[in-house]
Every structure is written in structure tokens, then in C-alpha cells.
């Protein structure tokens, strides 16, 4: 049924339809509307047979999900940013134990400086945690990915993280087609746990493993993720048949077939990218886009196939590896190894900075005109003068002070010292 609804409400409804039995969550912006809404749904009885734990931290949230999942319950949590980092230890534990927990990450920047707005630093910092990571382009896809995530998680007994851009999606009102309970029940069968804490058949979960078998247990995690590369497209096809809508899958190619220049991106920015692609196509330029829906596992063969005919690949990503370069870019470079293609790493949209059509168009025009060096890391719309003034201050002051405050004062938006 089509409804005009906030992204968080839509996701809360989708999660409700999946019938989680234990929800454990700790509030953090911009995830809050999702977990508030789920609390309402448990209280009103819309979501029955569900225990909602208001835990003392994100670490506690993921830990409660680990316990609940070990006891055979379908579990859910949601977090963002610092919260995801606070549960980092438990994330690795959940995946190591092979527990099919589903979590929404309302993507948000990581401090310092503290910042509540959207980028992908949080999810990217956990890319090696053993969780499957799916990125939603729209609220419709966020809804659909949650339904698919439960089926995926439980069929392989792996945890799945559904990433949706904080505020940009979580707080945006869009028309969303919410499935019926019957549809979701038919698509997501009841959980049959791979391992269960059962007094009638006691097992030891979480035993210590030394050098004798540690690598083998870890290898199984990799095997499962490789299996997910086969399973995810199958689930997406089933979803299309059941719900009449293409959603999910590994990749989202857009006019890439003959494109010489392809933009690779994740999440909500894809809409903007596609508009720029259309405009450049109208101008006779051979441009396309490749959306990454599934970032972990990394669909290396599929990405290679999709980019095999491109001359230039521009990876626009909302996070970067400080001191190294692009994160998605490194993966793309790996996927296109030995192909005659230049890969450009472009960091954009950090801490909620808008990625505009104009900026993307300028960037792509520069790339097409060979005015951009592919061997360097680029930052879209970086205020170079602001950076240089601060570097200058740092060079000359004996105690130049905090960068963030200095730079805010420089652009005139900090109270401290503004009226000196």
C-alpha cells in the first residue's frame, strides 16, 4: 500500500512486519525515530510477542541481541555513528558466532569533531566486522532491504547491517509501498536457528579456539559471505516475484552498458548521480553510474563485469581511510585490476555536506577533460583556503589551539571570541 511516510516510520513498520521477538536499542541521532516507533508498536500491540529492552548503551544493545539470538529469537537493533563504534567489539562477536541479527545503521559521521549529520564513516569503519552490509538508495529500498535482510541473515546464519543515510533518508517523507503482513510472512519464514541454547540439548556457544582451528572458524565466515554473493540476487529475484518490485541485489547499474565514464556510489546520493548522468547523456557524453547495494561481501566479479568497458571510474564516497585514500575506491581498484581503466577516489558529503548536481557535474567534466589526477585523493568542494589558513596558524602559533574552534571562528560561526 502506497503511503506518504517518514523513512524511520517506514523502516519501523517493515521491521514490525518481520516479527522480531527481541529488540534492544539505545537512542542516538538520527536512529531515534526508528526505535521510538518500534517502542510504540510493541506497546500498542501492533508488534506482539516481542520484548523491547531499553539498554544502557549500544554495547549492551548488541550484547542483548547476541544473547537473544543465541536463545533462538529473531532480533533487531538500530544505531548510528558513535553507537556503532561503541558496539564494535560485539559486532565482531556476533559475526564470529554466526548469529543472524539484523541491524539498521542510520549512517552518520564519526567525531571528533562531533557531528550528527550523514556520511558513511560509521558503516565503513565496520566493513571488516564480518557483517553483511547493504546500502539503501531510497526509503522504499530501505523497507525492502530489511525484509530481505531477515531472510538472508537467517538462511546463512550471518548478521546483516542495513545502511540508510541519516536524516537524508531516516527523516525524509516519501511515498513508500509498505507490504502486507501476509506478503512478509510468506517471504520470511519462521526462524530455524543454526544453534540454540536449549536445556533439552545443551550446547557450548562461544568456546575458546586456539591455533588448532581458529583460522578454520574464521574461514567459515568468509565462506558464508561468499555464499551470500549467490544468495542475495536469488532473494532479490524472489522479492521481485513476490512484491512486484525490483529491490536489493548486489549492484545497481544505471546506463553503464556503453559508458566511458562511470560514477560508483552508495546510498541516497545515487539519485543525484543519476540525474547528472542523464544531463551529461543529454549533452552527448558517455556517462553511467554503478550503485553498490551490497558492499560486504564485496561483489568483486560483478563489479569487474559492470566496469569492464569503462575508461574512467569515479568513486564518490562519503568516507575515507585517513592516511591512505578511498575505501570503496580501493575495492573498486581491486575489482578492476589489470583493466585499462583509471579509478578516481573522490571523498564527498562528509559530515552532512550536500553533494550537489553542480559539484558532481564540475567533477565529471574535469575528469572527462583529463584535468584530474587519478593517482591522488580528491575532496569534493573542499574549502582549500580555510584549510590553508588553519595550517598557517598551526605553523606559527606556539599553542594554536583546537582546529575545529579555530576554523569555525575563521568562518564566523563560533561564539567563543566572536565579540572580542
Amino acid at each position, binding site marked *: 500500500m502506497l503511503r506518504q511516510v517518514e523513512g524511520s516510520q517506514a523502516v519501523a513498520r517493515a521491521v514490525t512486519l518481520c516479527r522480531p521477538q527481541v529488540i534492544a536499542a539505545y537512542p542516538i541521532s538520527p536512529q531515534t525515530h526508528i526505535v521510538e516507533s518500534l517502542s510504540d508498536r510493541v506497546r500498542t500491540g501492533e508488534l506482539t510477542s516481542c520484548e523491547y*529492552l531499553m539498554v544502557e548503551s549500544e554495547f549492551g544493545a548488541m*550484547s542483548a541481541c547476541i544473547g537473544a539470538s543465541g536463545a533462538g529469537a529473531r532480533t533487531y537493533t538500530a544505531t548510528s555513528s558513535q553507537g556503532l563504534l561503541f558496539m564494535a567489539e560485539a559486532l565482531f562477536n556476533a559475526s564470529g558466532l554466526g548469529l543472524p541479527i539484523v541491524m539498521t545503521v542510520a549512517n552518520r559521521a564519526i567525531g571528533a569533531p562531533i557531528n550528527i549529520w550523514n556520511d558513511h564513516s560509521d558503516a565503513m569503519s565496520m566493513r571488516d566486522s564480518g557483517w553483511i552490509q547493504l546500502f539503501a538508495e531510497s526509503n522504499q529500498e530501505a523497507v525492502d532491504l530489511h525484509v530481505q535482510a531477515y531472510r538472508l541473515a537467517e538462511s546463512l546464519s550471518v548478521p546483516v547491517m542495513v545502511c540508510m543515510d541519516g536524516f537524508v533518508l531516516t527523516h525524509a517523507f516519501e511515498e513508500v509501498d509498505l507490504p502486507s503482513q501476509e506478503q512478509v510472512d510468506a517471504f520470511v519464514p519462521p526462524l530455524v536457528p543454526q544453534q540454540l541454547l536449549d536445556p533439552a540439548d545443551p550446547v557450548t556457544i562461544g*568456546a575458546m579456539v586456539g591455533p588448532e582451528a581458529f583460522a578454520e572458524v574464521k574461514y567459515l565466515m568468509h565462506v558464508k559471505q561468499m555464499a551470500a554473493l549467490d544468495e542475495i540476487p536469488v532473494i532479490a529475484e524472489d522479492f521481485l516475484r513476490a512484491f512486484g518490485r525490483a529491490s536489493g541485489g548486489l549492484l545497481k547499474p544505471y546506463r553503464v552498458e556503453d559508458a566511458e565514464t562511470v560514477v560508483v556510489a552508495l546510498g541516497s546520493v545515487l539519485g543525484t548521480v543519476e540525474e547528472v548522468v542523464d544531463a551529461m547523456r543529454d549533452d552527448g557524453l558517455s556517462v553511467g553510474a554503478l550503485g553498490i547495494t551490497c558492499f560486504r561481501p564485496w561483489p568483486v566479479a560483478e563489479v569487474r563485469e559492470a566496469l569492464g568497458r569503462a575508461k574512467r571510474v569515479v568513486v564518490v564516497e562519503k568516507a575515507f581511510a585517513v592516511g591512505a585514500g578511498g575505501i570503496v575506491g580501493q575495492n573498486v581498484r581491486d575489482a578492476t585490476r589489470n583493466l585499462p581503466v583509471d579509478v578516481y577516489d573522490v571523498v564527498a558529503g562528509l559530515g552532512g555536506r550536500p553533494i550537489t548536481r553542480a559539484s558532481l557535474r564540475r567533477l565529471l567534466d574535469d575528469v572527462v577533460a583529463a584535468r584530474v589526477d587519478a593517482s591522488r585523493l580528491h575532496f569534493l568542494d573542499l574549502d582549500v583556503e580555510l584549510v590553508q589558513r588553519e595550517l598557517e596558524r598551526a605553523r606559527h602559533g606556539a599553542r594554536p589551539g583546537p582546529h575545529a574552534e579555530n576554523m569555525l571562528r575563521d568562518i564566523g560561526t563560533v561564539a567563543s571570541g566572536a565579540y572580542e
Partner: protein
Amino acid sequence: MAFQQIKLYQTGTFVAGNRLLDPEQRSVQARTGRSNSLTSGHRACRGCGEALGARYVLDAAMRATDGNLVAVNSTGCLEVFSTPYPESSWQLPWLHSLFGNGPAVAAGVAAALRAQGREDIRVVGQAGDGGTVDIGFGTLSGMFERNDDVLFVCYDNEGYMNTGVQRSGATPPAATTANTKALGGTPGNVFGQGKSVPLIAMAHEIPYVATATVAELRDLEYKVEKAMTFRGARYLHVFVPCPLGWGAASADTVKLARLAKETGLFPVFEAEAGTVTEVSKIRRQVPVEDYLRPQKRFAHLFGDQPRPDVVARLQARADRNIARFGLLPEGDE
């Protein structure tokens, strides 16, 4: 049956040997139907108080729940010595996740069982003092304040023994550990630090809080069984000597646990909803020196340069406990 040698266990105490009692009056440990939840063959050190405590607690809890029990374990000695690959000593469903999250994991298990309508299955969480009073304290307090249906048991051996005997928030003053050595002007752990998690648990006004030692089996079993009669968050703090970490003889584990109580250094009590309801009185009061001397971690107090002043401060701690909890029998105070 032909001649059988009768052994009197716990000689020198007021406790009657179990084998002399009617079967119905025997302790859980003395019953043939004992669950052996933590079964033999594990790799704890000789004389390990924690292994003893865990066996006592779980067997009693298994009896109280008719075997419908799940155990959650924080990282630590108990987890390591019981599950060296490819073996497990656990004969009940058992989940280990991390060092600092045992209470939250246990809360999750309890929530799952409630959601599934399986509240007949009960949950015990267990950790050492590091996993309880330090790194797991946040999740423990959260579990308490939500009143989750979990019995959490701390096996307190007063330090990080699994990592090589370092100081924890439960290490007593003056005790030497690997990072509070007898060096400098104030040898051993400093005075004025540390915390009493039983008292903090009481401040949450949870249904039941109790302390116990591995020296008094019946008292410990009674408290476990009593804890299982409550729903909601319950806390049991068990004093478990560590021969390795304390530099004590393996044969002295029970003796030291008893001395900790008989000196007043470790008050044994029960509390319901934030109020102390019962106190285990000292039977034969002894000076703290009797407890300290057999332990190498306190050897620096009795060496070439004895520190009677430090011993006196430790005695003052015991005396304060005695006054605070009323540990002496009526008329002895």
C-alpha cells in the same frame, strides 16, 4: 555393603558431614543426582576457588530449576579453563560472548525466553570480579535497573587472574598484584579505592542480593535456591580464593574463604529490595593477621620490615564491616 570408611568433611567447623545425614537433608553437592553442570576434566588450577564456586552455584541452580537453566559466561578464567578447544566442561546450555557484556547477553537470553513463552527456563550469568565490578559494570547496572530476570553471579577472587594477576576494583588494599607490587613507599594496592558491588546492587533495589563464600556450601546453596524463587534481577557475590593469584597453598582455599568471613573482611549477608535481611554471624572471630599471613600477596606486611600499621588499617576495615553489618553474635560486640 562391607566396611566403608566414613569421611568427615569440613572438620574443625560446626558443619556436620553430609554423608551422615538423611538423603533429604544432604547438600546438593552430596546428592547422587547432582547435575555436574561444570563437569570434571577442566583445566582450572589446583585448589581453584572459582571452579568450586561455579560448580556449587550451578548444581544448586540446576536443582532449583529442575534442569531448566541456561548459563551465560563473561570472559575470564572460568570461561577459558572450561572450554579449551576442542573440549567443553559444560553440561548445560552455555554461551560466552565477551568480557564486558555478560549481564546484557544474559538479559537478552531472558528476553528471548520470555518472548517465546519459555519462562520456565531460567538464566544465570556469571563472571569474575573484573567482568563484574569493572568492565562489565555498565551492563550489570543496566540489567539491574531494568530488573531483567537474571541471576548474576560474581566469583570474586579479587583480581584479574586470567591475565596474570592484576589489580581490579575488587582487589583489597595492601594486596600485591602484578601491577601493585611491593615497590615504593606504599607497597601493594592503595587504601581508599575499590567498591562493594553487593552494596551497589542493593542501591538498585533489586529483589535479591546475597554474598557467600566457597567455605560454606550449605549457605551458598541456600542462597542460590532462594535466589531462584524470585523473578527479576538477582545478584550473588561469591568469595573464591585464588591459590595462584594470592600465593596461597592449594589446600587452603576453603580455609582462607572461611577466614575472610570470620575476620569480618568479607561480610556475608542477604538483602531484599535494598534492605539487609539476614547476616551470617562470625562464629569464632579471628584477627585479620590469621587471614593475611598464609597469603604471599600480603607477605610484605610480615617480612624484614613488618608493617603492623598496615595490618592495623586492614583490621580497621574488618572492624568497620563488623560494626556496619552487625557481624558478631549478640552480646559479643
